[in-house]
């Protein structure tokens, strides 16, 4: 396994820029996810690393080896890069058995019959496919085809493993289990993985770091926890986790209590308790006065207070939905409808008056 380095990678299709000035270092043994909405350029980036086409600008290194550098006319084909890849469609060859699918990369590398048998056998047992070895792909379930594709990518001991939405065609239960297994295999073999997904839960569950992308550009690079707790911008806050987004103008920020006051309409200001980071690094409150902002409040960061206070706002319960571990309420306030997730044991009636505390709020300048 080796690290992967991407320096200012740009990929254009004609005049359309699918990936723009993308830089990232994936360390040896690290699990990095590319996360973003459909069409943001994740696949393009992954396929640039795999080498299915030359990039337009920038440089890609696998370990110490430069594998793409248009400036110096360097471009190794995918067969020269020693990278493993699992496709969204699995791309298991329909005319070969499971065994032959997995053995193919080794045959191309001219390993002896014996070595092939041992190595394939090891992969088959790791993926619980021993009993399926002689079957054709059409006789396999989706999950087994997926494992076959994974086995084929692993057997060649690649320098890094690239996965393009590998779990998106599986049903929910299987998806959860495969996430878990994938993570375990990665730890055991110390794999370097670049993993593409549009599913934030998936990215959260498996990654050491997440690269959040939008329209071909990096929005934030952070560990899952960091990205959830401290989104770098409005896009990040919206894409990761469930949030209320409220627009307004800042009246003032009280740095001591870490409270921002938002002008909701003519004669109402609303207190928002800022997340640590926003409160802490914001000493210059004057310049932000009168600034239009988006305030982002996670559903679970809205608390129900017992009574009115200086840091509460008033609201009316519209509808509640019981969801097992928590209950979700929609509450009408001066800020509009706010969604709240509470412990399941808090029971509110429809039309009931409540007081809300808005905590850990992130504010991002708008306009």
């Amino acid at each position, binding site marked *: 396994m080796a690290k992967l380095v991407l320096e200012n990678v740009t990929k254009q299709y004609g005049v359309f820029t699918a990936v723009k000035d993308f830089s990232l270092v994936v360390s040896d043994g690290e699990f990095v996810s590319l996360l973003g909405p459909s069409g943001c350029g994740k696949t393009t980036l992954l396929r640039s690393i795999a080498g299915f086409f030359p990039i337009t600008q920038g440089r890609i290194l696998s370990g110490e080896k430069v594998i793409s550098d248009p400036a110096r006319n360097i471009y190794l084909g995918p067969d020269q890069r020693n990278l493993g890849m699992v496709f969204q469609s699995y791309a298991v060859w329909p005319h070969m058995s499971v065994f032959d699918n997995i053995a193919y990369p080794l045959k191309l590398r001219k390993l002896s019959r014996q070595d092939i048998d041992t190595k394939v056998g090891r992969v088959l047992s790791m993926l619980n496919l021993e009993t399926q070895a002689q079957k054709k792909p059409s006789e396999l379930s989706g999950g087994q*085809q997926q494992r076959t594709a994974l086995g084929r990518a692993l057997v060649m001991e690649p320098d890094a493993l690239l996965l393009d939405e590998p779990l998106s065609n599986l049903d929910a239960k299987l998806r959860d289990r495969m996430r878990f297994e994938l993570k375990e295999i990665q730890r055991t073999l110390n794999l370097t993985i670049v993993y593409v997904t549009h599913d934030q839960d998936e990215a959260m569950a498996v990654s050491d770091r997440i690269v959040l992308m939008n329209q071909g550009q990096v929005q934030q690079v952070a560990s899952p926890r960091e990205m959830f707790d401290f989104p770098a911008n409005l896009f990040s806050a919206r894409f990761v986790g469930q949030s209320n987004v409220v627009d307004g103008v800042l009246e003032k920020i009280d740095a001591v209590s870490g409270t921002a006051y938002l002008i909701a309409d003519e004669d109402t200001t609303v207190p928002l308790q800022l997340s640590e980071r926003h409160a802490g690094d914001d000493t210059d409150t004057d310049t932000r006065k009168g600034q239009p902002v988006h305030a982002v409040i996670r559903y679970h960061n809205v608390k129900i207070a017992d009574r009115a206070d200086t840091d509460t706002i008033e609201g009316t319960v519209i509808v509640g939905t019981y969801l097992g571990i928590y209950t979700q309420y929609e509450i009408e306030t001066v800020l509009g409808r706010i969604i709240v997730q509470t412990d399941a044991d808090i029971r509110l009636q429809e039309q009931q008056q409540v007081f809300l505390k808005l905590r850990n709020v992130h504010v991002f300048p708008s306009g």
Partner: protein
Amino acid sequence: MNPAIPRKGCLVKHVRFSAWISSVAVYFALGVLFLYPMSRLVISAFTREGAFTFANFTAVFANPSNVRSLWNSLYTGVTVTVIATVIALVLSWIVVRTNVYGRKLFQFVLVIPFFIPPFIMAFAWTRLLGRAGFVNVFVQQLFSLPQPPIRIFGFVGVVLVSVIYTYPYAFIVISRAMENMGAHLEEAAQISGASRFQVVRDIVLPVLLPAVGSAAVIVFVTTVSMFGIPAIMGTPGQFIVVTTRIYGYVGGFRDPFGMNIATTLAMVLLGFALVGLLLQNFFTRKENFATITGKSGHLELMNLRKWRIPISVAVALFTGAVVVLPLFAIAATSLIRALGVPFTLENLTLDHFRRLANMSIVQRSFNNSFSLAVFVPTITVIGAVILTFLKRQGRMPGRNGTDYIVSMPYAVPGIVIGVAMILAWIRPVFSIRVFNTIWILYLAYIVRFMIFPMRTVGASWKQLDSSLEEAGRISGASELRTLRDVSIPLIRGGIGSGWLLVFMPALTELTLSILLVSPRNETIGVTAFNMMQEGLITVASAYAVMITIVVVSLNVVFRLLSVRRDRRPANAPTI
């Protein structure tokens, strides 16, 4: 508890009765149309004067001419299959997977020979490469040769035109498979370390094998079943194949057992076709060749770089040679005052078209063929809807048998059906006389083409979720009402394409018609074929031009109509 129960009992009885009636009607119709003629064929091959015998088979194989015709058919079939399949593979790959110029245009233009009736295609090639053909005359004059240099009649000519007629079908099948294959299977091999050559050898060819195999089988069966092309390109060079040999026996070899010999030859030909069908089954069976699971829309086009222009030019030249050149040859012939005069403006004339328009036989054959081409698809579509409806209801006994009966003629060469029809109807049956009338053509066409609407109607009905019909029933519509208001509107795509699939070949059918035609009941195909045989070259050319214009413009019109229809939202959810 439920007052409706007693009523329900009598309803069930009523339904059983109507199901029984309709089953009897269906089986009677299928029996008369399909089973009766085919059984006459078998009987004729295995009997002489009412007694069971293998004498016909020994007689067939004792006559070297018959054996040679069988051998010629096989030999031609294999040659055409190999050449047409290779051409289709290469063209598919270029058009689907590379950045050749004009991909979309080629995708359409390359299949044009498929729309042109094969006997017209053959005739057009005689106008290019025949003894007085343009190419021959040109080369002869250029080098002042004593003889025309190119001899087209015989094996070479049959193969040439058969390849041109059959490769489009293989092209359609193979290019569709290539599109479905997507690029992921190849990319997975590349990233495993396979070179371009290894990708083609280990992945592309094996994955395409089922498509290529079944396309090849269809090409083979089509070639050995074809009549028009060997009759025009082979017979003048004494190159006789099974179909033309059968035609000879039916048409007049003086042999007391001529008809028995013809049916026996037909049985052997049927054997070729059945072997083909078995092979076809083998290639399309899932157990033998896994189908492609990981379907992906994305296709990376290979950049041909410095080969882009040469390859584009080569494909364009090929298209020109197989599409434009022959059509140009008949168009030119149809406009020239007389054969052999130089092409100058004053030698051009529309006289041949005028003469054609005044020939009563031409007018008659247009009427006959258009009636056949409108009514036969209509009847077969209605039949297919009824059969499928009864089958879907699940109350008709032995309903799966109907499928087998109806799909039988799919494997049966047209000339064999023609022979069977003669045997079945040559004498009045229960004093119903259809032979020597136009009705024999209707019967034969229905038998021949029934399979197309059965396939398309069946396929689109299968996609229809039965809950749609159940919703109609629960809303209070009767079964027939549901059929009219729900099912038929929703399967109109299958109905329309089934109708068209019959309309086109019915309009210019030759093989069946040539055996069954009678005076005053001529079809377009027969009239044109006879003109060509009689050496009325300029008039025949004018006729061929007219037919081609009609066929091509109808194709364009229907294409435009169906494009508009396809813009409507799909009937069934597609996954």
